[in-house]
């Protein structure tokens, strides 16, 4: 998640040298690498420490249905909201409010479903980043609408929190061997 937000912080700085497409495209291999790392960490560090559990089929089906329903609702609101704004020829203020609301909704849903309260805080940071960025740009002349600073702080907070929590987890839980106290 932190690496995803990193794009909003770094891409504006790269647009002059790589162009709009290239500055975003360069993040694809970084995200791919992050995904592989997450899978490897899950296999080698999380599962041996916490064990394996398989949910009952009824519960799996219920969770799957809930995820699909949430995804459809979010995509529907995102598309209809974007189309409505385009149709209305909405002002930049209205567009910003829409994007802020979307960020808050997505992070709040994730926080509620995953029961991770810190995602609410992340949502607020990401939602406030464009507003604060614009303010910094207008009032203090910070480059690229202040995005490198505001999104940079948000992504650094998310990445640092994640790494810290992971190290604490590794320290707290050693890999147990069945039958060995």
């Amino acid at each position: 998640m932190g690496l995803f937000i990193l794009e909003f912080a770094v891409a504006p700085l790269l647009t002059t040298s790589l162009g709009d497409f290239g500055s975003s495209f360069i993040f694809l291999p970084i995200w791919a690498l992050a995904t592989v790392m997450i899978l490897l960490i899950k296999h080698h560090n999380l599962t041996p420490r916490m064990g394996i559990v398989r949910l009952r089929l009824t519960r799996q089906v219920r969770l799957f249905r809930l995820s699909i329903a949430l995804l459809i609702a979010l995509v529907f609101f995102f598309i209809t909201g974007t189309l409505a704004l385009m149709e209305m020829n909405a002002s930049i203020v209205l567009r910003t409010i829409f994007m802020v609301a979307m960020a808050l909704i997505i992070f709040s849903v994730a926080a509620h479903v995953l029961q991770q309260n810190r995602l609410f805080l992340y949502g607020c940071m990401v939602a406030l980043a464009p507003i604060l960025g614009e303010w910094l740009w207008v009032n203090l002349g910070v480059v690229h609408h202040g995005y490198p600073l505001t999104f940079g702080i948000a992504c650094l907070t998310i990445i640092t929190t994640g790494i810290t929590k992971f190290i604490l987890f590794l320290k707290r839980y050693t890999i147990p061997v069945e039958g060995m106290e």
Partner: protein
Amino acid sequence: MTDEPMVDHPLQQLTDIDQVIHAPARLMILSYRYVVESADYVFVMRTTGLTWGNLATHLNKLEEEGYVEVQKMHKGKKPHSILRMTEKGRSAFRSYKKMLKQVLDDLPE
């Protein structure tokens, strides 16, 4: 006259409660297992907070009673056991839950 038992008092049902399930550690193990299909020993240990020794004792008791089945395997050179609640175990746990709920619900505030 005072020695006569109270006939049909709801609390008397507690004498028939399943003692195998009623022990706190086993109740904890079965409560976690009731909502999942299967889990390995590490997960059971983490969720219950029991030591391997305690866990083995209680699982033996549950296995003897036919409430759980254990599939022993190896992951590399390390032992890796998977625990499943049997249909008999699920049925016993449902009856236990129903009985306890009924007895407690019948108690006045």
